[in-house]
């Protein structure tokens, strides 16, 4: 699926991009249904699904009990008999209850049956609100270790819209990870209803020659901010947003790291066994001869997310952390 004309755009908040993607895809295809806690009448705890119930009725937009196993099961069962379900798991942390259905059922359906499982699971991660250690976790890496699943994690309104549309149209189970802290941020989004972005393709958000920064989710804007600041210091930073975490667009990343010889990865997740670990490993495996400095992971410290927002923000990596890491990799060996 290629992106279509992007001439006409509109500034949207990320939540609006998601809302438009859902609306347009439900409009386009009557087999698209949406199930989740509070997705209907209230329009979601953060308003993301606002208006859908009124338009598409309480069968296609269905408020569910607090039953996360059944939630994903609704998607698997409905996907198996002809619908194209979108399941919302309110917070990523609650996906812990539905892991069997995601990992052992949805992801393995095609392997067992040979048939498509056109299921999209939407959920929301990150420490963007006063929610604490059980409502703020970043588990994206885990799902990148599950064969049969695609994992998308957009960093802005445009990608959220274009990739959610792609996920819904896709014939495979897709975990679509929204980031709480990004819901109110804006980007220009093409108005074309067939604006669909390709799954598995990274976006180079800023070109540069000295250092490659691969940033994920909430850290993309921060990396861009850091790059801007560093430009003033004469450091040319390339910022890549993988957008799809599985399958990962390794070629774009490897090409960039080989060119710049330096890698910083930036993520809200903690470091161990994360996407950042995977990216640094990738660089070591495939770019060693070109590496001019040891890669650095900019990540949250390996501790729980505290509830008070100032503390949660203090824990999350900032633009200045990204900039500091870039300066470190720029130091003469």
């Amino acid at each position, binding site marked *: 699926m290629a992106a279509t004309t992007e001439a006409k755009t509109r500034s949207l908040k990320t939540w609006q991009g998601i809302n438009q993607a859902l609306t347009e895809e439900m409009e386009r295809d009557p087999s698209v*249904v949406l*199930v989740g806690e509070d997705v209907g009448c209230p329009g979601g705890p953060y308003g993301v699904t606002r208006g859908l119930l009124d338009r598409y009725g309480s*069968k*296609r937009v*269905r408020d*569910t*009990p607090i*039953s996360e*196993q*059944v*939630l*994903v*099961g*609704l*998607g*698997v*069962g*409905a*996907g*198996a*008999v*002809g*619908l194209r*379900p979108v399941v919302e798991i309110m917070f990523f942390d609650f996906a812990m209850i539905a892991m*069997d*259905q995601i990992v*052992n*059922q949805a992801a*393995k*359906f*095609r*392997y*067992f*049956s*040979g*048939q*498509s499982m056109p299921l999209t699971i939407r959920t929301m991660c990150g420490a963007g609100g006063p929610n604490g250690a059980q409502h703020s976790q970043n588990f994206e890496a885990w799902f990148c270790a599950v*064969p*049969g699943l*695609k994992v998308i994690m957009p960093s802005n309104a445009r990608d959220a819209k274009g990739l959610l549309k792609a996920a819904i149209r*896709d*014939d*495979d189970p897709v975990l679509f990870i929204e980031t709480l802290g990004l819901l109110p941020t804006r980007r220009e989004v093409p108005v074309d209803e067939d604006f669909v972005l390709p*799954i*598995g393709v990274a976006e180079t958000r800023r070109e540069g020659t000295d250092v490659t920064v691969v940033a994920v989710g909430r850290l993309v804007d921060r990396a861009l901010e850091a790059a801007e600041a560093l430009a003033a210091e004469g450091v040319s930073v390339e910022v890549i947003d993988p957008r799809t975490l599985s*399958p990962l667009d390794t070629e774009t990343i490897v090409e960039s790291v080989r060119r710049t010889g330096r890698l910083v990865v930036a993520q809200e997740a903690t470091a161990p066994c994360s996407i950042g670990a995977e990216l640094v490993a990738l660089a070591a495996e495939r770019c060693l001869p070109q590496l001019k400095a040891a890669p650095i992971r900019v990540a949250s410290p390996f501790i729980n997310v505290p509830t008070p927002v100032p503390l949660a923000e203090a824990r999350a990596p900032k633009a200045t952390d990204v900039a500091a890491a870039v300066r470190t990799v720029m130091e003469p060996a």
Partner: protein
Amino acid sequence: MRLSRRFEETVHDQFHEGQVPGPLHLSIGQEAVAIGACEGLRVSDAILSTHRGHHHCLAKGASPGRLMAELLGRTAGYSRGRGGSMHVAIPSIGLLGTNGIVGAGLPIATGAAYAMQVQERDDVCVCFFGEGATGTGAFGEAINIAALWQLPLVFVCENNQYVELTPQELHVAGEIWRRGESFGMPGERVDGNDVGAVADAVATAVARARDGEGPTMIEALTYRWFGHYAGDQAAYREDEEVQRWRTLDPLVRSRAALSDADAGALDASVEDEIAAALAFALESPITGPDALAVDHLATV
């Protein structure tokens, strides 16, 4: 039933000959449940099966040859021989999967039934599960939503009285057939070794479901003659108990209704079918490593 019985006896023989590369959970003795329950189902109805699911698969219309091929690890199997007994899913005939995870079919069943409701089909979903699965959280979630949304879903608990290596008394408090009561869901216990009784109870439940009257909880009491898996000697139960249940053989009971001639003809046709299935499976190549990577994603 005879087909199911002979199918499993045959695959059990193959197991002893070292031809079955995966686990084998036999349902010999329990056939009346699957056969009775699926009797009135359409191709467009769905079922969810378990780790002990050969009888469900056959009752819903799986080809004995391809199923045998799957169990024998052959390329002609439904999952190319990679999945074996616990991973057979044939959506085209409404078989949404046997399952290696106890209870996992229950949430999926709610999804199939929900889809039928959305699509305004008058199809139904029948969800089979063992009494052991009533201990899972998936079971609790599923009955609530099924009752709440009045889903076209029939719960069929195949209570064979053992849960792996322990008796059901270690697993189940109270009575399973009553589990739906407090949700406003009707329930019934039937003799799971009486194919007619099972068929009647499920037919009533299916009719209700097709009419939009919601789910039913059925508990079919039965017994597995063999161990939990092929190879399990089932030392945890008394011979006397096994013998008593063998005398309640559902096949013998249903046969009583047939004339000798009809029974003989049935036997012969089943033997032919089984022989053909086995030959089909054995002729199919043993699945090799080159088949492992396919069918993970539709598009990459």
